């Protein structure tokens, strides 16, 4: 198994290397004979271009790992670009403000309280030592009262930083706080509806995709206006830093993307939360019976997905100097494609952010190569689709054992086990479901 996994992972890098080689070999040369594809300018441009999709794919990976899907990210990004652009360019009372400030307030309150509670919990854990294997319970003061108080104080601090900017226009730090918070809030709403309402993530996020698009248009007002952002004239010049090169080499959006991949990757690998994400995707019922709060974990993955869409939105505004309601159209599909190309199973439980990183780059390099050859943009779409199918087909070879299992003679008809009770039990459950008695 491990060997197969390793093999599949190398296959992924092979895909990346292969597409890179194709790029190098087929690249047109400059008049001085230099390889355009290989020029650092071109490659850094690729990094810049994939950053938006990449950030969204990062959040999407965790959602898909739990066995879910998030179709709303494109629309959430649209809302956030509108909010961001509006805060940057319009002073005073705006729709963006009404959306943004409560979101920031709530987000800081909840995150702050959770963080303080987390610290208390871990202090208590250290005190209890490893021999005490039962879960640690906090008393009321440290479990509820102090975290709530801390959350409120933190919330007040952040709002007191933001409120003065209301009269004028928001700065970089301001929008970097507000836009992601809006995304986080909408993402959390997705998660809460999915978990509390026990609904399919597909349908909930599809509804959110439509709803959020509407909200984005309403917020933008005046016939879905495009909100231009001219740093230096109608917005603060500092905002330009989000599109510049850091140390004159790496574009800022690329830094955001790479940091997000590394951070979230570390979270998935090294924290209990990450372990739960995989466990839920692998077998949610077993995870739940092991005492894992599956609902909370899922809500967090959707919230973070929204948060990352919000960050992507700010970078988008910086990059394209505008915020508009159709900014993220179709982005969710690009992100899902990148995640799947990266080897993450849509069934959940298997995959990694390293894979997603490769998937995003494969996608980006491909577009770049097609552009360098001046291929018709419509034809580009066709080729992209073909490449996605090709890549995933290669990936599916790893699931060969699964396919083989499904094709076993008789397996499709009836569980082939003499174990009557199990059979009878499950069939009885199936019956009660088909009869509409029990909704799961």
């Amino acid at each position, binding site marked *: 198994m491990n060997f197969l996994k390793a093999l599949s992972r190398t296959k992924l890098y092979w895909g990346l290397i292969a597409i890179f080689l194709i790029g190098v070999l087929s690249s047109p040369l400059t008049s001085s004979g230099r390889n355009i594809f290989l020029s650092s300018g071109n490659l850094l441009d690729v990094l810049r271009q994939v950053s938006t999709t990449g950030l969204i794919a990062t959040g999407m990976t965790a959602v898909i790992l739990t066995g879910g899907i998030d179709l709303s990210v494109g629309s959430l990004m649209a809302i956030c670009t509108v909010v961001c652009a509006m805060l940057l360019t319009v002073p005073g009372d705006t729709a963006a403000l009404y959306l943004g400030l409560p979101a920031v307030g709530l987000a800081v309150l909840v995150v702050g309280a959770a963080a303080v509670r987390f610290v208390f919990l871990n202090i208590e854990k250290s005190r209890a030592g490893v021999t005490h294997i039962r879960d640690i319970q906090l008393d009321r003061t440290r479990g509820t009262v102090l975290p709530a108080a801390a959350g409120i104080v933190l919330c007040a601090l952040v709002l007191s930083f933001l409120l003065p900017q209301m009269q004028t226009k928001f700065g970089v730090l301001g929008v970097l706080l507000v836009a992601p918070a809006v995304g986080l809030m909408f993402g959390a709403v997705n998660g809460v509806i999915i978990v509390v309402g026990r609904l399919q993530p597909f349908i909930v996020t599809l509804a959110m995709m439509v709803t959020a698009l509407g909200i984005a248009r309403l917020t933008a007002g005046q016939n879905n206006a495009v909100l231009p952002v001219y740093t230096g004239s109608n917005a603060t010049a500092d905002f330009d830093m989000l599109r510049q090169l850091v140390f004159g080499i790496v574009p800022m959006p690329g830094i955001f993307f790479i940091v997000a991949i590394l951070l979230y990757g570390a979270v998935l690998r090294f924290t209990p939360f990450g*372990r739960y994400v995989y466990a839920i995707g692998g077998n949610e019922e077993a995870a739940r*019976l092991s005492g894992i709060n599956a609902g909370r974990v899922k809500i967090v993955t959707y919230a973070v997905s929204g948060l990352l869409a919000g960050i992507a939105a700010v970078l988008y505004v910086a990059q394209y100097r505008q915020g508009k309601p159709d900014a993220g159209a179709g982005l969710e599909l690009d992100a899902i494609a990148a995640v799947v190309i990266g080897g993450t199973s849509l069934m959940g439980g298997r995959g990694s952010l390293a894979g997603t990183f490769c998937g995003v780059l494969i996608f980006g390099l491909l577009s770049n190569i097609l552009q360098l050859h001046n291929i018709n943009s419509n034809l580009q779409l066709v080729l992209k689709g073909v490449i996605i199918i090709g890549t995933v087909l290669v990936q599916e070879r790893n699931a060969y054992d699964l396919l083989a299992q499904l094709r076993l003679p008789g397996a499709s008809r009836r569980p082939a086990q003499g174990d009557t009770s199990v*059979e009878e039990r499950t069939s009885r459950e199936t019956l009660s479901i088909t009869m509409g008695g029990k909704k799961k």
Partner: protein
Amino acid sequence: MRDAIPRDSVTTESDRPILAAEAISKSFGGVAALKDVRFELRAGEIHALMGENGAGKSTLMKVLSGVYTDYEGAVRVDGETVRFSNVRDAEAAGIAIIHQELNLVPELGVADNIFLGRERVIAGLFVDRKASLEAARGLLNRLGIELDPEARVGQLRVGEQQLVEIAKALSVEARILIMDEPTSALSPGECRRLFKIMRQLAADGVGIIYISHRIDEVMQLSDRVTVFRDGRHVWARPMAGLDENTIIAAMVGRNLLDAHRRDRGKGGGEPVLSVRDLSLAVSGRHGWRDVLKGVSFDVRAGEILGIGGLLGAGRTEILETIFASNEGLRGGEIRLDGIAVNIRSPRDARRLGFALVTEDRKAKGLHLHESIRDNVALPLVGRLARFGLRSFEGERALAKGAVDALGVRCAGAGQAAGTLSGGNQQKVVIGKWLATGPRVLLLDEPTRGIDVGAKREIYDLIFKLAGDGLAIVVVSSELPELLLLADRILVMAEGRQTGLISREEASEERIMQLAAPRSARGRAVA
């Protein structure tokens, strides 16, 4: 339907079986489900097939109805050897089966369900609704079933659905009708109606194979009885002159397990787990339905409480209700060490020191493609982590401890759980829960699908854990297993507790008597 058999020949041919199974053997992956069994059915008789869970009744029926095609031995219909390659073949030979579970499409009407897959069509394209409604009406009339052929099946009561299923089976002109526990979901009134139809069919010359756990029904309904035990044929006798105890004794048999037994602890002291008036109601189509009612018991440290009963009697539900892992309205009081506890989720249950090893370990117990290490450590990942970082060292130590302590045979703790044998998978699940340091261990069918050698190891493990002072509750369908493991046995029937008997007074016969649902018996708790 009966025209095929000339009237005058019925008497002379009635002794010749219309269906005979000879020397049938069938195994699943090395585990024998049927060993050299025989069975025969005559025209016009109701022939009951009895046996405990896992005796091989359903397996034989699936052989006879063309579901299982890879078996040894011969099936004869009217003396001619046949080998069905699918269910359609069996139907063509006049064999129809009504499975315990209903195979109806709730969204379709009664007539549509009856003729599903065999629709009458006009011009080879369009369903002839009128013809099928008429045919269905005729069929229902003949059976004396008062149902509207246009009614949507999903809106019928379960008993009525069962009748639709019967009509469907008979619409293929069946001469041999197999009924697998048809009354498990029926009310007494519906049962009587069904029996009337069955007798009428038998009088018309249809041979009926009737499988049921309800001995009283079997005794009043059937002409002959065949008993299976552990996949073997015990005997076949005419019903006349048989009594209940003879049948039960044949079903149960004698010591199947060479019971070896630890020295029991004193079993004294205060109860660790004390359950009072436990109840569970789930919402169904007709409002709330009681699945469990009035279940009360105590388990002391070092004691093993067994829960017995038939399938669907509410055994698993007791464990799930305690562990709060099921849906529905839970009621009653649970005390741990004398303190009332409120368990709202499996998470609460784990925190308090409960552990649940589920019946279906693949679907609910394990992450099959993950390593033993990850499986064992899962409940404790959060507890072992420090400031948000997982303690891989701690998780490894935990898994190694479990693998060593339980003797899991594996290449290492990194091996994927799905690649282990059933017994070793079960050890991993148990190991996962022992790592959480439980006070109360709830085991649901702990040896299901495990070979004999591994069963022994699991028994030894359970005894050892009891010796260590855990309070253990074991649900099992296998009576010998219950008798071997349990200090006391709680018997359930139809969601009610029908007895709580000590080890000394427990016997397989006694448990079976308590477990048998009686259509006549009232709701009173014994």
